């Protein structure tokens, strides 16, 4: 598929490429070093042989629980809290991957360019100078994972509100931890969890958790 383009990239910038492989389903992935990212992307975009003019998506993956996350009971909305103790140092390094899905309309080839990041050093140079669409995708990755894009003109949260604390798509962010903006009305028949939670006694629980005993009140709103 796009193996030829990866070879071109390897020839042009040999020390930028860390590795490359072909995934199932026909995807070709090349991992580049973070410091050489902009050069490599500029080559891929501007060189007439590769011509990757369309940046489809910038995806992020948090590999924290890749080995340990399991199923079984997931369909019963089982696990509440994070899969591991959040305050410990992350046992998996590099923890984050930022993947750029590129496409060349003229050559009809797709390529995924991946950058691996360690959890203490979440910075990536921005590619907004190459593709204008990278603007919002990088904001999305920043919002959801906390990755800082150096040189981005307007790195703010895209989907969450500014008062939100934390980065939701990280694996150590509990799925039901809501941070309400408007104080909620009091109903006598609202099911309340075991108190005292943040905000007073008996934090209201969502309807899927009526009667649960073993909940961590800090993970609910």
């Amino acid at each position: 598929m796009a193996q030829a383009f990866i070879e071109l990239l390897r020839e042009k910038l040999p020390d930028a490429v860390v590795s490359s492989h072909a995934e199932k389903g026909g995807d070709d992935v090349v991992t580049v070093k973070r410091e050489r990212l902009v050069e490599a992307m500029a080559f891929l975009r501007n060189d007439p042989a590769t011509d990757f003019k369309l940046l489809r998506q910038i995806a992020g993956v948090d590999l924290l629980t890749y080995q340990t996350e399991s199923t079984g009971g997931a369909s019963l909305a089982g696990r509440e809290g994070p899969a591991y103790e959040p305050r410990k140092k992350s046992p998996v390094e590099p923890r984050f991957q930022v993947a750029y899905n590129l496409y060349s309309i003229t050559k009809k080839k797709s390529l995924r360019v991946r950058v691996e990041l360690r959890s203490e050093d979440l910075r990536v140079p921005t590619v907004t100078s190459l593709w204008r669409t990278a603007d919002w995708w990088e904001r999305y990755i920043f919002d959801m994972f906390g990755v800082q894009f150096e040189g981005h003109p307007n790195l703010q949260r895209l989907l969450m509100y500014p008062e939100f604390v934390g980065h939701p798509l990280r694996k150590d962010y509990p799925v039901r931890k809501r941070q309400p903006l408007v104080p909620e009305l009091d109903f006598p028949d609202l099911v309340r969890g075991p108190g005292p939670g943040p905000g007073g006694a008996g934090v209201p629980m969502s309807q899927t958790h009526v009667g649960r005993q073993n909940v961590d009140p800090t993970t609910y709103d």
Partner: protein
Amino acid sequence: MTEPSSEPAAPEQDPLAVETELPSSLMTVNLGPSHPAMHGTVRLVVTLDGETIVEAVPEIGFLHRGFSKSSEQSTWHQVLPYTDRLNYVSPVLNNVGYIMGVEKLASVKPTERAEYLRVLAGEISRICDHLTCVGAIGLELGAFTVFLYAIEARELLWDRISELCGARVTVSWTRIGGVATDLPPGWEEKLRDCLPRVLELTDEIDALLTRNRIFVDRTRNIGVISAEEAVDWGFTGPCLRACGVNYDVRKAHPYSVYDRMDFEVPLGSRGDTYDRYILRLQEIRQSHRIVLQCLEQLPPGPIIIDDWRYALPPKKDVFTSIEGVMAHFKLIMEGMLIPKGEVYVYTEGANGELGFHIVSNGKGKPYAIQVRGPGLPILSALPRLIKGHAIADLIPIFDSINMIGGEVEQ
């Protein structure tokens, strides 16, 4: 055009000259997240100079429902209802896109009949999407009749979809290796009966709007974008094809049975709102062609594969054999164990290239899913599209890009 300053013009230049520029400052207007247009929820803070838009800052996130995070807590099939609600005007296309990604990871090929059924229902969904978009364009420019016709056509198609898939809007119809339900008896005749009526209504809409002086004046040369810039902004789908770039995933990388279908891809030339509208009408007609071809070529056979690692066993096996009940139990409780891997699967959604970046760690629920909603790049280019136009032009532009809040904001 000179920007008027906040202080009045100096009077010592010519005291008898008539001031032609009113000293005024720029005005900021908030087009808030509760839109009268039925397009989801976007806040646009526009800075106006009189009626002309100088700058616009969109703010999104008012429909962010945590699709990625919720799908990490559900099994592979339980994610399907979440995918329905991404592009809720053409839900079958989302289901198909997602399930193709899962099938790629599992290296599973669906049955042939299921492929045809997916294309059939997908194209009907695409027609519904384009009808809704055109209806909304008409509605917001004051042509209420167009809206009523479009919704009536959509109702006719939804009747067929509800008979086939079980629900009108949010269907969750595809399964790994096939689809959930087969055509009910008599469905094909009913579809063949209602399609001419849908085309009639489309022709009525065409007659009402396409050569309508008011409509043309409001949409011609409004929101123009060039092909290169569109690609740079990440456009795909009707908005990109309106600029003249011939990129349709169904033709460029035919998936499912699109290589056996004979249809054209309409292309625009100017990249303005009028082209986007015309393109959608033409795509309705092309989708209609595909639907008829599917009906002709539809092979008999099973609608789902017989592999009990991924597909639920038939009910009679569940209730009469040990293996059946065990397979059923494991698939429901644990989910299908999709092998480890990462895939980016792209299909032609109604608005553009709908992509799913799916990561699996070998377990019964997805490790990470991220949607490439076609509306997000187009919405990010909205300030570029509306700059310099009057505020009344914002409405046709915003309608023609057909931003669906669910897929933009996941």
